[in-house]
């Protein structure tokens, strides 16, 4: 029982990334040495934990207990009191909210990032705020999302019922959109610098774009203030916003399509990698805080019941989920940015 448990964890936690067959022969000894050391570390850690837990299992749990609890959870028909849905359904709820949140964050973040990276006015105007929000714990905003978005676990969007909590999605957007905006604007700004140098070299510098950016700025200010004052509804304000951005993009389409968009893709991938980890935390915090059906609620419930095994099982599950998400985003990143130097 114990042995089995140990084997399962070691396999899932490290062996997924490196495949042993593709290393060259002369490196194989070194690779093996590292592998042996890593395995030793994990086995010793799990062994110590197993021994410690044996003295007071309801306090420290044990790797074997944790794994069997996780196994039980994965097959459970009903995990939470009052709430229907098997455990995999709850996992899907959390991941779905995460996915929707990430997609929305990308829309917000890319729009903002392109504006700030491409146009000087927006950079000067908005960069301080972006940097400020970037360096701040955005989980502080989660409670207020409850007040704004309510605690319902589904909502209607254009007549279609979306089975995720609006509040959880909003928390993800708050946590992630800034990260994506930040890396997008950094990437686009870097490209613009290079582009400007090239255009200097070819004597192609022009004042074109200045009028557009100021027109855009004025339109965005109008959209913002009119929405705030209630002259436009939120939807109308957003339409004006995206129309303005669309106008800028169309006027500048060669720059956007040929240079900035392809150039910014690796930066977007980096943004995605960082954002996914924060998004997972945001989802769990949000669900934990008010008990929206999902993984956070399972943790909340296990805490209330002092179920240590389940708490550790959830921690392990989240570790694995986080690891999978990171592995996916890393694969995406290395695919999309293979041509870029590794400095960033």
């Amino acid at each position, binding site marked *: 029982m114990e042995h089995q448990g140990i084997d399962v964890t070691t396999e899932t936690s490290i062996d997924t990334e490196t495949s042993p067959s593709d290393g060259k022969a002369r490196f194989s000894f070194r690779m093996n040495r590292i592998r042996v050391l890593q395995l030793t570390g994990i086995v010793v850690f799990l062994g110590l934990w197993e021994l410690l837990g044996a003295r007071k299992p309801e306090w420290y749990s044990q790797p074997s207990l944790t794994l069997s609890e996780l196994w039980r959870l994965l097959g459970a028909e009903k995990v939470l009191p009052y709430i229907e849905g098997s455990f995999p359904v709850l996992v899907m709820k959390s991941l779905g909210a995460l996915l929707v949140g990430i997609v929305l964050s990308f829309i917000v973040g890319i729009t903002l990032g392109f504006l700030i990276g491409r146009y000087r006015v927006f950079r000067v105007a908005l960069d301080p705020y972006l940097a400020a929000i970037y360096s701040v714990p955005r989980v502080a905003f989660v409670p207020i999302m409850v007040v704004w978005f309510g605690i319902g676990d589904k909502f209607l969007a254009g007549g279609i019922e979306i089975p995720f909590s609006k509040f959880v999605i909003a928390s993800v957007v708050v946590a992630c959109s800034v990260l994506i905006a930040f890396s997008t604007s950094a990437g686009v700004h870097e490209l613009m610098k290079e582009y400007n140098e090239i255009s200097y070299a070819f004597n192609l510098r022009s004042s074109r774009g200045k009028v557009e950016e100021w027109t855009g700025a004025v339109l965005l200010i109008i959209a913002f203030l009119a929405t705030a004052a209630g002259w436009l509804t939120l939807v109308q304000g957003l339409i004006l916003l995206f129309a303005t951005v669309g106008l800028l993009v169309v006027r500048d389409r060669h720059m956007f399509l040929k240079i900035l968009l392809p150039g910014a893709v690796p930066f977007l991938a980096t943004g995605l990698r960082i954002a996914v980890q924060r998004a997972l*935390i945001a989802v769990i915090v949000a669900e934990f805080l008010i008990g929206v059906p999902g993984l956070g609620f399972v943790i909340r419930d296990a805490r209330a019941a002092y179920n240590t095994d389940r708490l550790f099982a959830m921690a392990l599950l989240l570790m694995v989920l986080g690891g999978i998400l990171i592995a996916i985003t890393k694969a995406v990143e290395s695919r999309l940015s293979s041509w870029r130097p590794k400095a960033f």
Partner: protein
Amino acid sequence: MAAVDTLTHQESGPTLPASGMNRPLTGILNLFQSSWVIRLLTLAVILTGWEVFGRRTNTVTFASATRTWNALWELTFSGDLWKAWRSDLAIMFTALAISAVAGVVLGFVMGRFRSIDNTVEPVFVGVFMTPKIALLPIIALWLGYQFNAKVLVVILFSFFEVFFTVRDGIKVTNAEYVDVARAYSIPEAMMLTKIVAPASAPYIITGLRLGLLHGMVGVVLAGFFLESNGIGGLISHHTSEFRMHTTFASMLTVMAVGVAINLSLRLLERRVTPWSIKEST
């Protein structure tokens, strides 16, 4: 300059009509090129929008700029803000002191000795990758809901930032400078004080900065989920009673402290290590 501009535009063809037509307009726009004018205007627009929106919405869901400002003074004079931040800053600096010492020492050791690094790394990475929020209830179970538990939460958030930054820094410096030092056969002790320590200084400072910033996340979360006496507690308490003006004011202080930490440590970074390194996160 203007002559050069017109010349190049005539050469570059397609841009000619736009620049010719817009010349007077760009002249006026140049007035606004000063970044401070733009920044002040932005601040004015944001504050106006905030105020206007706040005045026409329900005070239960939103607070205008002036009400938030008043609440900020109110919280400051009533001592609530000071009480919350005093306990949180005590937690943060205790935790960061521990994280810094442990992170730097372990970072040095594991940066130098690869076999120790290889043995311990998987476990560290495992804990690092676990969303800390999942460990929070377990910590509450072990250490209760007060100071000790909160310190441990913040350590979990800050330690790995310090540790991984320092370790990776040591690994990089080892390769370059240590070889040169070896060539001059410098003794091991001197190598540590004269080469490895100064070379890793920027990584240590970056690690501390990241540690503090992540520690702030920890301290806010601890306020939500453990004893609610810190700034996180203040926020969740005021939100649950729908007092938006004080909630906004508390959140503003979180932002102010975050920005202050970031700026001051960046300045320190620039002072101590003018050659500065690029951060990864």
